[in-house]
C-alpha cells in the first residue's frame, strides 16, 4: 500500500469513528435524561419507558456503527490500496 494512502486511511478511520460518536453520544444522553425524568415523574411506567429507551438507544448506537463500518472498510478492505 502506498504510505500516503495508508496514512490517510488510518486518519480517516479514526475520524470516522470519532466524529460518528459525537452525535449519537449527545442523542443518547438526551434520550436517557428524558427517560429518567419520565421515570421520576411516573415510576409505574418504568418498564415501558425502559423498553422503548433500549430500542431507541440501539437505533442511535447504529449511527456510530455506520462510522465503524466505514473505518473497518478503510482499514481492512481499502478500495484504494
Amino acid at each position: 500500500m502506498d504510505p500516503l494512502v495508508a496514512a490517510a486511511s488510518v486518519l480517516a478511520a479514526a475520524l470516522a469513528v470519532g466524529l460518528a460518536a459525537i452525535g449519537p453520544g449527545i442523542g443518547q444522553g438526551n434520550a436517557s435524561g428524558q427517560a429518567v425524568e419520565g421515570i421520576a415523574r411516573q415510576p409505574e411506567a418504568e418498564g415501558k419507558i425502559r423498553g422503548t429507551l433500549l430500542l431507541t438507544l440501539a437505533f442511535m448506537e447504529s449511527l456510530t456503527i455506520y462510522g465503524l463500518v466505514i473505518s473497518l472498510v478503510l482499514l481492512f478492505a481499502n478500495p484504494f490500496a
Partner: protein
Amino acid sequence: MLDVLNTFNFLPIAELEVGNHLYWHIGNLKIHGQVFLVSWFVIALIVGASVLATQNAQRIPSGIQNFMEYALEFLRDLAKSQLGEKEYRPWLPFVGTLFLFIFVSNWSGALIPWKLIELPEGELAAPTNDINTTVALALLTSLAYFYAGFRKRGLGYFAKYIEPTPILLPIAILEDFTKPLSLSFRLFGNILADELVVAVLVLLVPLFVPIPVMMLGLFTSAIQALVFATLAAAYIHEALEGHGEEEHD
C-alpha cells in the same frame, strides 16, 4: 463492494481471524463455508427445539413447551405492536423467523466455544458477522414489504412515492435503498464490533477482564435481533398502511 470485505486476510490484525474464511468452491462461486456450517447448526437448533416442544403438546405446558410458548407469545406481541391487531397474523412467521434466527445466531456466536473445533482455514463464529448473511436478511425484508404492499393495494402501492407531494419522489425512492442498507450494516457492524472488541480484549488480558464486555455483547446482540425484527415489522406495516398513518413506536 460487499466482496471487498472478504480481503481481511492480508492484515496484521489477521491473528484475530476476523476475516479468514473457509472457502468452498461450488462452480464459479466462492462460498464462506463457516457461515453455512454455523447457519445449519442454528437452523437445526431452532427446528429441533420446535419439534421437541410440539411433539407431545400438553394442555398445561411444562419444560420446553412452556419455554417455546413464552417465546411465541413474545414474538406475537412484537408483531402485534408493530403491525396492529388486524394485520399481524400472516406476517408473524416472517418476523418471528427473522428474530429467532438472528437471536440464536448472535448468541451461538458468543456462547458456544467454536474455537474448540479446528477448521483448515478461518474459524466458526456467528453467521451474522458476515455481511453476506445480513444483506440477505435485509433484502428478504425488502422483498417482504414490497410483496405486502402489492398484495394489499396492487399498483396503488406506488402512490406512496408521490403521495404527500411529488417533490419528495427522489427521497421516497432513495428510502427503498437505504432501508436494506441500514438494516444490514446495523446488524453486521454491531456483531462484528462486539466480536472485535472481545477479541482485542482477550488478546490483551486473556482471563476474566473480557467477561463484562462479553456480557455487554450478549445484551447488544439480543437488542439487535429485536431491532431487526421490529424494523422489518414496521416497514411491512408502512407498506400495508401507506403514507400519513399514525406512527407506531
